[in-house]
């Protein structure tokens, strides 16, 4: 087990290095730079490049970048003058993570439940209800859902805040808007996966053994059907906890999501690199966790088998 983890960690580092290098090349290939603006004069551009070390040859900038990354120093944001990328991530990630986990908890629990119910009541009213929810959730973009929620629950009914980020109440609408799409895909995946499992031979065997239907569904049905969900849960968690542009923008949430997109528009090189490295690290870590979780969930997969196992 230890050797396995060590090897995986090594691969993670190599992957990160590749990501950093490719991002560095791509970032510099995009036209315009961090200082490009309508009123920038060539004189000031030169001064700014000197100040931020962008007048150095590319390879030198690359080496400096790698050195700083090894010290976990992501540098100063150029767009938000004077703030370090580390600080910005430290400040915004917890916000996005809270919102993301809330959305994920809601989406996964409800999505799985709906999926299981739909599968068990295949072709009946409950199944259709679940499918309708899933189709709506997948096909309506989240900004539309968010606008409707804001209008109905915030403005018309005056039950929840329209926007702003202050208390738990403020998290409900954005979490719902953010989670609805995930909920829908969870429902669909769980339903089809469950249906497939329920038609397997071992379910019939379990029935023949005289197990109760609850036992069959939980021990043999859900446990097997959930495997594909676990696979996507890793990348999904990474994506949803690092924030999303649209929801943050609409509800005025100070999250990390906007930086993924805006840093590129702003050509804020340190911020682009910071968000890329941060997200990649989380994604790789989550994938790693999923691999380990497999061993716990799936009886057929054992990561470290001793001899004679």
């Amino acid at each position: 087990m230890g050797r396995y983890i060590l090897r995986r960690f090594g691969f993670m580092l190599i992957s990160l290095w590749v990501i950093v290098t490719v991002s560095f090349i791509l970032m510099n290939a995009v036209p315009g730079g961090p200082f490009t603006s309508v009123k920038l004069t060539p004189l000031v551009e030169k001064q700014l490049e000197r100040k931020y070390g962008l007048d150095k040859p590319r390879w030198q900038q690359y080496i400096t970048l790698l050195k700083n990354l090894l010290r976990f120093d992501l540098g100063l944001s150029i767009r938000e003058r004077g703030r370090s990328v580390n600080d910005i991530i430290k400040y915004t990630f917890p916000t996005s993570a809270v919102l993301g986990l809330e959305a994920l908890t809601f989406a996964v629990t409800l999505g799985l439940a709906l999926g299981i119910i739909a599968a068990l009541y295949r072709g009946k009213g409950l199944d259709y209800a679940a499918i309708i929810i899933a189709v709506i959730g997948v096909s309506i973009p989240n900004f539309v859902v968010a606008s409707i929620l804001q209008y109905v629950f915030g403005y018309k009914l005056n039950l929840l805040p329209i926007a702003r980020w202050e208390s738990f109440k403020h998290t409900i609408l954005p979490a719902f808007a953010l989670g609805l799409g995930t909920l829908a895909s969870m429902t669909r995946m769980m339903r089809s996966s469950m249906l497939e499992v329920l038609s397997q031979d071992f379910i019939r065997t379990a029935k023949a053994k005289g197990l109760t239907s609850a036992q069959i569904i939980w021990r043999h049905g859900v446990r097997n059907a959930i495997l594909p969900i676990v696979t996507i849960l890793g990348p999904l968690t990474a994506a949803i906890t690092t924030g999303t542009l649209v929801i943050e923008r609409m509800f005025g949430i100070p999250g990390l999501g906007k930086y993924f997109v805006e840093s590129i528009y702003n050509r804020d090189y340190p911020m682009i690199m910071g968000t890329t490295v941060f997200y990649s690290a989380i994604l790789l870590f989550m994938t790693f966790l999923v691999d380990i979780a497999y061993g716990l969930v799936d009886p057929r997969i054992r990561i470290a088998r001793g001899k004679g196992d």
Partner: protein
Amino acid sequence: MQIKKTAVVFTCVLLVASLLAGCGPKKQSLPAIRFLADDSEAAKKYAQGLQEIFRKNLGIELVLENVDFKTRLQKMRDQDFDLVFAGWGADYNDPMSFIDLWVTDGPYNDVGWSNEEFDELVTLAKTSTDQQERMEAMAKAEKILLDEAPIIPVYWRQRNFAEHPWAKGIVRTAFAPSNEWKWAYTEGRPGGDNELNLNLGEEPPDLQSVTCTDTVSIDILNATLEGLVRMNPDGVYEQGSGLAESWTVSDDGLVYTFTIKDGLKWSNGEPLTAHDFEYAWKTVVDPRTASQYNYIMFFVKGAEDVANVEIPDEEEDPEGYKDAIAELQEALDNMGVQAIDDNHLVVTLEAPSTFFLSLCAFSTYYPLNQKAHEQWGEGYATEVDKMLYCGPFVIDEWKHGSKMVLKKNTGYWDADNVKLDSIHFDMIKDINTPVTMYEANELDAIGVPGDFIPKFQSERPDEFKQMPEAVSFYLECNLNHPLLKDPKVRQALSLALDRQEYCDNVLRNYSEPAYAYCPPSMQGAEPGEVFVEKYLKDYLPITGDVARAQKLFKEAVEALGYEAPEPPTK
């Protein structure tokens, strides 16, 4: 079978015929004109609108190239465009802020246009103290620009906003700062009086006055700091309106002596003196600051020399670095701003400037406390407690990317006239959410996005308001293009443009069709006089002159040896 044979023969005949037709003396077909524009949804729509107008009126097909903002700017600098949709916002209230862009080899002249007479007129307008003479020179220069048409004005943008009836006294100007809250107050506000809820739209990217360039930050700085003068609600710069009690101007208009008010204090209790201005102004042009707005300081004598000092890397070239620092020090000492004592600031200008006082009210000219600035270094003005205040308000709370709360500054010299206790800002970038919040009375005033204008007009006609912005939008023609190099072709484009139709049917946001280049918010010789209205009224036909445009275009194109496109039929 028979049908197939016939088809083959027919095709062959056609081929031969078309080959023969191609043998005669034939003019080259029109070279493509690439049309560069931004890639937001609105910008795409606006660009397609122009494309359609030129297709309809001249029969030419512009090749649209929508790219993101910074890519467009880079391509403009590299002159990698044929036609580009661009805009410019004023830095100060004088037509010069627009006109001097197009001097030969100017840093913003990316069309490659050069006109000797134009250059001379600009120089005259920059050095003369006679307002009348200046205005006439600039009007003449603008006429040359419009006649030669290296740029083709399209529209002047309007600002559409709404405010609830209880929100009063917010002064909105066409220039930065675009919102002045010093005199704001409320009457019968549902959530309680003496406070305002507003949307800032985004995190202020830079609250350090010497480097700040964006309107969001400038609005906040205008509320929390103050310059030597402050614009009154009616747009006038009066003696004693800012941190200077009074000033005198030498007869030649070159030397300003400001007397700073007695007993001024920074928010930490330290005295605010003339030295804080000298330090700030010198910091703006110091090459190590690398301030994008340093050119706004170039009206001060010797400021440009300071900015032009090249400082090599200290590690790579220690000798050169030492020399450069010495040179810089000398340039700074020679710069025309000097605090002769705590209360007196003497400023010498490069040339007499009629709008210098308006610059003294601008954020780049605000004072800066040297001790605090050096203490916090790069982190200055990145947190509430890492900056000093001297304006009508102080920042009380700043949650990055989420909200900012301003509180009345009780130590402000004119605190008696500040009626608001606090202003709460949200930082919501989305354009729809604030509209819903406004309707729910959670925001007291908002900017109204284009799509919502009809709704506000019908549902809240008394709350919906408009005002001109000091922004002009125009097409730039690359003068290296085989067609656009010909002034006649450019004039034809300008004449083919029905600006009224474009504003009414494409923009649909109350933008004004531009009959000239400088927007009408630019003042003429006297306050209240509108430069373009007086000198250039209807210089370009706003509904276009399609017949003349077609004739001109055909002549010009054929003279260049190209085949003119089929005259478009209705």
